[in-house]
């Protein structure tokens, strides 16, 4: 009983409950016929939100006002440039990956430079950066749609032991993020900064260094997600990042991370990402029209956040 009680106090439990309920409601309608297919699709599509969402979560942990709106543009640019560089050759896969990561690093540096040097609030700085990055993507893309190298295309669309490969990649990155957040000094530091920047500074934490690394980390995860997504969907498109702006923030919030900063968790990102995909497919299964579907999505998200927000403050 006490184990159960402790579980319900975990902030991420609500997103998992919600994801499970929606999953169950969907397979009940189909009579269990598509259980495996639905689960695999959910894992595949959730993987991209997970990777992007983890980066966003780290930034949001830094406290009020910290957010990275350049995520979609970074995804697009990284996908576009990497595919162009690889030019359908399997031998260029690693250089392509490296370039994607470098783009992430560059965007992260530029983001924090704007925030720190020009003292622009993060929300404005990253938004303006996203315009620059998006323009760069348009300029390099020029309407061409280059296919990914065949090995990469296969890798991203196939499965290992019934689990989609992209979900495995997301799992690896999540483990890394979990260790960073829960076990390392760095994790303590971002949580401290998120609770009180002044106190963090006086406790001897190198505040600027930590924030800088966090913005770079977020941009790198976004570019990785862009790289994977471009390969998965058979080529980069200029609007491929668009839905991940809201998605990256929604999964963080639904996952039980404190919007005010200082308190985050990795499991919640998984529950929330699966939930976000499953809600849409459930409403699709019910055969609802597009308008109703959007309204329902909004209402369901609000109710999950209200439920999750009902936890008592002070519980760690």
């Amino acid at each position, binding site marked *: 009983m006490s184990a159960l009680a402790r579980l319900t106090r975990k902030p991420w439990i609500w997103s998992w409950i919600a994801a499970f309920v929606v999953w169950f409601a969907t397979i009940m309608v189909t009579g269990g016929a598509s259980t495996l297919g639905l689960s695999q699709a959910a894992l595949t599509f959730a993987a991209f939100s997970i990777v992007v969402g983890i980066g966003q979560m780290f930034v949001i942990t830094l406290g009020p006002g910290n957010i990275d709106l350049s995520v979609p543009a970074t995804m697009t640019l990284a996908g576009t440039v990497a595919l162009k560089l690889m030019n359908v050759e399997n031998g260029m896969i690693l250089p392509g990956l490296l370039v994607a990561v470098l783009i992430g690093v560059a965007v992260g540096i530029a983001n924090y430079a704007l925030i720190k040097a020009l003292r622009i609030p993060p929300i404005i700085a990253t938004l303006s950066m996203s315009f620059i990055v998006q323009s760069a993507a348009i300029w390099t893309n020029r309407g061409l749609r280059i296919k990914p190298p065949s090995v990469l295309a296969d890798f991203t669309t196939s499965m290992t032991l019934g689990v989609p490969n992209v979900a495995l990649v997301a799992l690896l990155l999540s483990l890394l993020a979990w260790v960073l957040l829960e076990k*390392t000094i760095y994790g*303590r530091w971002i949580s401290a900064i998120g*609770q009180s920047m002044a*106190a963090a500074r006086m406790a001897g*934490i*190198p505040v600027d260094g930590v924030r800088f690394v966090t913005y770079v980390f977020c941009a790198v995860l976004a570019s990785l997600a862009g790289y994977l997504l471009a390969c998965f969907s058979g080529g980069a498109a200029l609007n491929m990042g668009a839905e991940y702006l809201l998605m990256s923030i929604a999964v963080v919030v639904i996952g039980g991370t404190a919007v005010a900063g200082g308190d985050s968790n990795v499991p919640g990102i998984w529950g929330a990402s699966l939930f976000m995909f499953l809600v849409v497919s459930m409403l699709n299964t019910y055969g609802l029209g597009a308008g109703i579907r959007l309204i329902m999505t909004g209402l369901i998200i609000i109710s999950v956040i209200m439920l999750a927000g009902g936890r008592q403050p002070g519980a760690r």
Partner: protein
Amino acid sequence: MTGQALQAVIEVAGARVSFGAVKALDGVTLAIMPGECVGLVGHNGAGKSTIVGVINGGLTPHEGTVSGDGAVIARYGIIAARSRGVRCVFQELSLCPNLTVVENTRLMHRQLGGFGWRARARAIIGRSLDTVFPGHGIDCELSVGELSIAERQMVEIAMAFSDAGITPRLVILDEPTSSLDASLAEQMLAHVRRFVGAGGSVIFISHILGEILSTADRIVVMKDGRIVAERPAADFTEHSLVEAMGSVVKGEERRRAARDLANAPVVLEHAGRGLPFRARRGEIVGLAGLAGHGQTGMLMKLHAASSGDWLPRKDPAVTFVAGDRRLNGVFELWSILRNFSIASLGDLSRQGLVQADAEAERGADWRKRIEIRTRDMGNGILSLSGGNQQKVLFARALSTRAPVVLMDDPMRGVDVGTKQEVYDIVRQEAANGRTFVWYSTEMEEVCLCDRVYVFREGAIVAELAGEAVTEESILAASFEGTAA
């Protein structure tokens, strides 16, 4: 004045105000007669601002009455006070920086509204400025934010003396000259005399005793929420005023034995306005003076100068104990243990990974050492009382390897028992070679220091060492007039 006995403009009788356990006012009776200037002096926390709050209607006393013109006023508040002509010039400037001087005048005088208020407001504030500060050269169409701090203060003072339908009868000046230079201060004091000569009343609070002595008719000295002396100004000298403010009876002091540290190496130096700052190994250096005269700023500078914002330091040079716990002390979402260990994580980790066992062990060790009253270090920090939270902050700082500990008046609101425990720890650690830089507003603590720097207006104005560290000498240095 038709032969009747004069009646007080405002009279406070037996006022008691307490904030939590702190008695800010402990039965104060004070009457302000027409045509007199009352000087109000006292050390920080003596209750001056509280009594001002009661008189201007901002605070309702928990006990006692406020009466005006001989009649007790049942529901006395800010609006009632203003309609009786009570005006107040605050220490913290209270003008809206984004509005012009004229617009601020309109805000202050409710009855100025209606068509053409701008012209009326400009005339009123302009006239008042010309009277108080002839030749001021302030453009009333500028927004207050564009004015210098002295000009803002001038506008604020002129605002209090301005007449827009309700004649000011009692003007409270709370350290009005702190940002004015000598000639402007003189103009203002001259106006105060004129105003009083015409039958107005003034309550004048200042830390510059010369001003008080030359301007006030009567001086009221406060200490610990009580009035301890009340005499005509002519009966006071600067010396006797300082004496009246200090504690008259000296309790047995827990003085430390004088130590010879002249040969110890200097570990911290800072040159700024005023005397240079220097701290030696194993020394307890006090920062004294009135609150808000740059001591916290000095600590922040010392901290910033020896800690990195970009790269973590392997060996921390300084550590900090916050006085304002909520602002820059505790991490509210965290457990006691995490709050304790945050500053020394470098020692508790391997390859960037925090060693949970080592962390818990050190936490348990310090919990015993300074008796943090909790069953479980995993409990939230906010489950502790204020004093115990403060102990956690002490433990956080002392458990680092930093050779210098900066303390920002950390004993605010801490009970006596805890204080004594912490004093003992500080003395022990200092004997082991740690340096403490200790800002305190409490005399008892300042007197524990080997050497004391006295601050005034952001600069160090005096250095006292050994036997010279006494309440009188510190007060004298903090209240020193123009001489620096």
